[in-house]
């Protein structure tokens, strides 16, 4: 890596897109500084440099600002060989499309988790189930999406499985119970060292705090757990 440029990652603690980049940086052992910001109260200096006001953003040196998680991930991958991204143009294109798919499924999962309306909650759940099928199909009988070796596209799905794990361990609800390959893949992905170090230690705490404070459907269907820590007996997510 070109050591002339200092890398500063601007992120938000429970932002899944920030998590993707953090995971890649840990996997590749990149030296960088990290600045966390609050997304409901973005600092002036951040709004000045981030065209869309989104995290994550990677500042290179003093002035160069990269935005979009997939863009930053590919950049980091390219400057830290060996690359995790394939060389073949078609495979690369397919993977890039899957980055966008992963963004979309993660966005929908977070909308599901933080839903405050029952109807939206149910709709989101249905959307997710429908779209898990695609990943299941892509995996086939392979260890990783592209075969036996980890590639960049696997890391783009990390926040999905980290969040699903959080749901599973905090509420006994396994959204992947009908997706055999996804379960195995998810367990494997979340046990990678870079995935453990690729998120803040208080991720689960912050997520649960958010679920509770926003009076979400998840919270309302299990207030005892959230208030006293008593785990629900049955699966809560699929009660109407």
């Amino acid at each position, binding site marked *: 890596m070109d050591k002339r440029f200092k890398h500063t990652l601007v992120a938000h603690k429970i932002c899944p897109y920030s998590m993707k980049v953090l995971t890649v940086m840990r996997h590749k052992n990149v030296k960088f500084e990290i600045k966390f910001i609050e997304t409901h109260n973005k600092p002036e200096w951040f709004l000045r440099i981030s*065209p869309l006001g989104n995290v994550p953003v990677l500042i290179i040196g003093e002035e160069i600002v990269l*935005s*979009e998680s997939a863009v930053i991930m590919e*950049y980091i991958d390219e400057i830290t060989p060996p690359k995790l991204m394939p060389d073949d*143009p078609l495979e690369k294109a397919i993977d*890039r499309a899957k980055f*966008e798919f992963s963004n979309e499924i993660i966005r929908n999962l977070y909308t599901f988790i933080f839903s405050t309306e029952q109807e939206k909650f149910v709709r989101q759940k249905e959307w997710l189930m429908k*779209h898990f099928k695609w990943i299941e199909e892509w995996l086939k009988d392979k260890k990783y999406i592209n075969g036996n070796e980890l590639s960049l596209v696997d890391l783009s799905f990390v926040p999905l499985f980290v969040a699903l794990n959080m749901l599973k361990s905090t509420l006994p609800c396994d959204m992947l119970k009908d997706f055999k390959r996804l379960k195995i893949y998810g367990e494997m992905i979340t046990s990678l060292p870079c995935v453990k170090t690729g998120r803040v230690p208080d991720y689960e705490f912050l997520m649960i705090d958010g679920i509770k404070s926003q009076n979400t459907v998840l919270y309302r269907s299990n207030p005892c757990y959230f208030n006293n820590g008593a785990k629900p007996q049955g699966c809560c997510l699929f009660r109407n």
Partner: protein
Amino acid sequence: MRVLALMCYKNIKVEIKFIEMYSKPEWFLKISPLARVPILIIGDDIVLFESDAIMEYIDEMTPPQIMSSDPIQKALDRGKFEYASEIIKNMSIFVFSQEEEKFFKHKELLKTNLEQVEKWLQDKKYMNGEQISLVDFCFIPIFVNLSVFKPIIQQCELTKNFTKFNKYGENLLQLPCSKAGRVPDYELLVVEGVRKVNSYLYRSNPCFFKSLQQNSHCQQGK
């Protein structure tokens, strides 16, 4: 449109299938993971989705590449692909929204967006200099749409004082692939869409839309 314009630029032989977004066919939903267009079918089996992924693929398969090979420049350009998509989303709401509040909110957002593009543009022909690069294709649809509603845009002063932006638009719209990269009845279809939803833009500019209707009748009469 960005993909089509690029394919025209690169002279690629391609078959096109148009579909209705309000009534997506079953065969399409089976192969497009996010049910979005465009998708590129290669041979019988391979399906590429996401316009930016398709564009980079086409560029790589048809040297000389117009995307930079420098990792930082590539990353900066890719960031702009996304920004251009955001502008298009805002424009779509500006044009099709039925609510006055939403219309004005997105008009302001667009102003901010265009201001940003003005800042990025150097005094050169295209975004990255005198030569066209892949990122320019992402901006073509923006200028095509602005030109459909040119009198309205001028009246609400959306692009006023953005001299570099306006010049850039002229440069892009002059490209042959800009014209070839869309269906001939594009303007008609957009205007028809606006009329159908009775958007705020439509309701607040009756003269403009009436004159368009008269013009199209005249053309049909010829």
